[in-house]
């Protein structure tokens, strides 16, 4: 459990964070979301002490982070940076094993662990171990970035806008990878993004931050249904993210009210999840709460979005 208690970060000209309190449960995929400059990254970096609060405390399992040896603390926290941030002078294997090396693992064990994780994130270890970062695509580099963060089996993994620079297809693949890894590992993930749809898709719970203050914390559904204030509501609209959620499809009047049995999806799942299901079973009927949706509804819905755009 990570607890941020009344943290304030004051710079010479302004407050980056203002008296903010937040609790992240163990094993949770927690998303910090907000526009750029909101203070979400500052908050994230307080957990591994890349940043220290001016006032307030940060605790991990009730122990103040300041009480740890800083290197020891960081060696046990995974970190994924923007666009991978791989060291260009090291191979994929060396990059991925950097935390293991500082922890004193021997070469053979390091290679074994890295190879296993590379395979797990969809990069053939035999092919990628000895490549240089310059030979990787953006998506591949960030997969290596994820391997690097997970290598030392940390209890906490911090991710700072890791997918913001990726193309939409790689982005979606990596989001799915994060969800899958989180499910398998039962590790606490803290994920920072400015993309509301990404936040909704990934989060077990999410916190909306704006101007250094906390706007709302909750599960995605809750926040979608009941935005706590005007900012949260407009943040969704501005991001034009509402349209991708299945409860928006229902709201727009598609589908039939029915008790018919079908594949159950949540209202906070997206039309992309739906399309992915249809890819394997083309005539699949899905059920979102009390509404049944058929493949033709997806096509009609997309067409209606196109019209709106015109």
């Amino acid at each position, binding site marked *: 459990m990570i607890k941020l208690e009344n943290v304030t970060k004051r710079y010479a000209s302004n407050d980056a964070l203002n008296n903010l309190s937040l609790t992240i449960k163990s094993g949770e995929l927690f998303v910090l979301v907000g526009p750029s400059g909101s203070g979400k990254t500052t908050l994230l970096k307080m957990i*591994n002490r*890349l940043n220290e609060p001016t006032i307030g405390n940060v605790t991990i399992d009730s122990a103040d982070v300041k009480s740890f040896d*800083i*290197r*020891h*603390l*960081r*060696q046990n*926290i995974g*970190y994924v*940076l*923007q*666009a991978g*941030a791989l*060291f*260009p*002078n*090291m191979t994929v294997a060396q990059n991925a094993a*950097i*935390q293991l*090396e*500082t922890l004193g693992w021997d070469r053979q064990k390091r290679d074994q662990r890295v190879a296993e994780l590379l395979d797990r994130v969809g990069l053939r270890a035999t092919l990628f171990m000895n490549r240089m970062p310059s030979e990787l695509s953006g998506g591949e580099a960030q997969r290596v970035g994820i391997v*690097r963060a997970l290598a030392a089996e940390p209890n906490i993994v*911090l991710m700072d806008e890791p997918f913001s620079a990726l193309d939409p297809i790689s982005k979606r693949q990596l989001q799915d990878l994060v969800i899958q890894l989180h499910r398998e590992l039962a590790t606490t993930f803290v994920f920072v993004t400015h993309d509301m749809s990404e936040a909704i898709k990934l989060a077990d719970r999410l916190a909306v931050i704006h101007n250094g203050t906390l706007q709302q914390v909750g599960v995605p559904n809750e926040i979608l249904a009941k935005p706590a204030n005007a900012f949260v509501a407009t943040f969704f609209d501005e991001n034009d993210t509402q349209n991708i959620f299945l409860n928006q499809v229902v709201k727009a009047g598609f589908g039939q009210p029915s008790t018919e049995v079908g594949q159950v999806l949540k209202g906070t799942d997206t039309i992309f999840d739906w399309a992915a299901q249809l890819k394997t079973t083309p005539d699949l009927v899905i059920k979102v709460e009390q509404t049944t949706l058929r493949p033709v509804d997806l096509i009609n819905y997309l067409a209606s979005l196109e019209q709106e755009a015109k």
Partner: protein
Amino acid sequence: MNSLSSYINRNSSDIIAALGQHIELSIIAILITVVLAVPLAVVLIDHRKIGEFFLQVTSVIQTIPSLAILGILIPFVGIGTVPAIIALVLYAIMPVFQNTYAGLTNIDPLLIEAADAFGVSKRFKLFRVQFPLALPMIISGIRIAVVMVIGTATLAALIGGGGLGTYILLGIQTNNNDALIVGAVLSAILALIASALIKVLARASFKRLVIGIGILIVLFGGFAGIKTMLTPKTQTITIAGKMGGEPEVLINMYKDLIQQANPNIHVKLKRNFGGTSFLFKALQNQNIDIYPEFTGTVLQSLVKGHKNVAANATTAYKDAAQALKQQYNLTYLAPMKYQNGYGITVTKAIADKYHLRTFADLAKYPELKAAFDPDFFQQADGYPGLQKAYGLHFNSVRTMEPSLRYEALAKGKVDVTDAYTTDPQIKKYHLILLQDNKSFFPPYQGAPLMRTHFAKKNPTIVKSLNRLAGKITTSEMQEMNYRVTVKHEKAAVVAKDYLNDHHLLDKKGK
């Protein structure tokens, strides 16, 4: 081109030695620079303000002319390789420090954050992340420094540091284009090769580079250690000479004479060592032990209170020796016979035609066309003084570069020029030196100069050198200068020939 290749052939071993000296100077300077500048940049990574301050300091040093730095250093560290290396290091620090500092501080902050976030040690961060990422910048800084050092090292010759600059200086001073080309072209080639070599080295891995530099340092240290161990512990004395062929012949004679009497004394010769005030300081600072100096120069430039030099050569020598003893505690041995002072010269044809023998004869023919060295034309002890003393008054007087005036005279373009009395061209063009019948020009007799303390401690050396007293006539010196600077014979050979011909090397001087 022919003369160049024959010049290289004749002097090949000396040229190679100078090249070796040049490389040694440059490598030592670069190694010291790297050892100083790189750790300094590392220490200052997290102290940007102090770092900026050092950047400014290194830039300011860069703006000081290298000659001025050498001049400033002489009183503190004397002359020779030490001040040369210090000056080179001061110059080379700027590119190495600036590039290293820029390389280390301009690494993508995201990568530094990544290193920090994974809890790596400072050492790991420095050697595995910061250095490798800054390496291309550091290497290019070193490359700039190497090219600069190789170029600037040519100035080391000015303060007796040796190297290829010796040939450049020699070339300028004696108007010898072959020497000039050898010095300039070799240092340029050396710079190009070094630059290319570093470019190749830059592709090697960081680890190998560190190992390589380590080996180089160890090798150099070992080499220097062995060199000092192998050098026998006999007395070593250093004899230096000014620029040019004549001093070189003289110091070779000194060496032969000293070693003939004391085979155990090791004599080190520093030819083309520099100008008058430079050698004089070097003698006082015990960087050198002996050098030949002229009486006229001593009285006019080195000691106080003798601006009006006695016209009589013997009186002039006595004045000079006494003043040197009193003012600087130096011993000035007895002079040789010849005089190397100003003179007036004409071709044999003109001398015969106008029956010219003395300066006074010259005053009768104002229609003769004269050409003088610009200094001689202006200085009170030159043409203006002659006008007063002899009533000389030429209708046509031109100023002309010293190197050109003899040829102009020989070709009949001018009729009268000034000269140095031992210049080899006088022999080469069969010119006639007119007699200074009113002794207007101060006497310039050469004699060995040394510290009194040194003279007292080494009476046998004094005795050996005194065998040259009253020897060597002006025409003999002209002849020897002619063999060295025109015929390009070795000064050592010319010196030995003279000593043998005059039985100065015979035992007990029968």
